[in-house]
């Protein structure tokens, strides 16, 4: 499992993939490309020819408001499909941009569609991934609409930890958190000034620490309790 790419590591949570499924997924990528931070992978309205998978770095789905403000509506981490659904929907209703330098794998739309027909377990795993994306979005709606800023930030960090752990990118309770305050603000619908205030408050309470862009969730249970974080909506298997 240690050598498996992030997509396979993630999809294992969605179905009991067999050797032939793993073999197909290992050969699914058409090509790879490196994209710098702050670039659009796909802009709103474009009809994409390929489906993108994050291999390293972080990207996001976002919309820009007429006054220039940006709302980030989801984070895309290693192993995540950026646009699995466009294989069916045909065009993008939002933009996908990189937040850090990223390594992106590309899958041709037709090849993906063909794989989904011929490999039922992969098909199931992709359904799972799409449904989990929806579940995450529901949780984000609750987070942004109903929680205090402190709870919002704590919840975001708990979720990030759980998702990165799935693909083996955490070290104990810590992980690489490369986001600027502006990015965190755009994720939560608050201001960068307020992110700074809330971060200080969480630090002062001894719940987390941040050094060299690594965040350490010192008291994970405390953060989870504060923010009402229950990872059940991520639908992760525990027996992998």
């Amino acid at each position, binding site marked *: 499992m240690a050598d498996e790419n992030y997509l396979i590591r993630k999809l294992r949570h969605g179905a009991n993939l067999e050797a032939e499924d793993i073999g197909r997924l290992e050969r699914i990528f058409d090509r790879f490309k490196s994209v710098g931070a702050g670039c659009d992978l796909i802009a709103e309205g474009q009809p994409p020819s390929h489906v993108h998978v994050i291999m390293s770095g972080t990207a996001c789905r976002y919309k820009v408001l007429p006054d220039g403000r940006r709302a980030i509506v989801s984070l895309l981490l290693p192993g995540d499909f950026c646009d699995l659904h466009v294989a069916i929907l045909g065009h993008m209703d939002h933009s996908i941009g990189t937040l850090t330098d990223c390594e992106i794998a590309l899958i041709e739309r037709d090849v993906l569609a063909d794989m989904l027909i011929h490999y039922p377990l992969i098909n199931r795993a992709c359904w799972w991934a799409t449904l989990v994306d929806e579940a995450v979005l529901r949780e984000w709606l609750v987070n942004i609409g109903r929680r205090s*800023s402190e709870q919002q930030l704590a919840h975001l960090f708990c979720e990030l930890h759980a998702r990165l752990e799935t693909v083996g990118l955490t070290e104990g309770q810590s992980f690489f958190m490369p986001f600027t305050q502006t990015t965190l603000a755009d994720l939560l619908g608050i201001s960068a000034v307020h992110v700074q*205030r809330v971060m200080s408050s969480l630090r002062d309470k001894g719940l987390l620490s941040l050094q060299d862009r690594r965040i350490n969730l010192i008291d994970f249970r405390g953060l989870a309790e504060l923010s009402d974080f229950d990872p059940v909506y991520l639908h992760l298997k525990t027996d992998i």
Partner: protein
Amino acid sequence: MPLFYFDINDGTRRRYDTEGQELASFEVATQVAAQELALIIKDEHLGGTRQSYIVTVRDQGGIPVFVATAMMLGEPLGLPS
């Protein structure tokens, strides 16, 4: 873009901003200050007291250029006997 610092005094303590934010203009900085007051108050639990919140904006040189204040007053009224 000019840099602005936002010091926040929430009545119990004063926090000096050492990082600052790059913003398009002074006007934007005043909006950010007002928005910060609103964000703080949204999450406050007022325990039947008077509470003041002050955001002081300093410019790149550390000179205060704007101050925004909000006050909340909570007063239990009791039941008429």
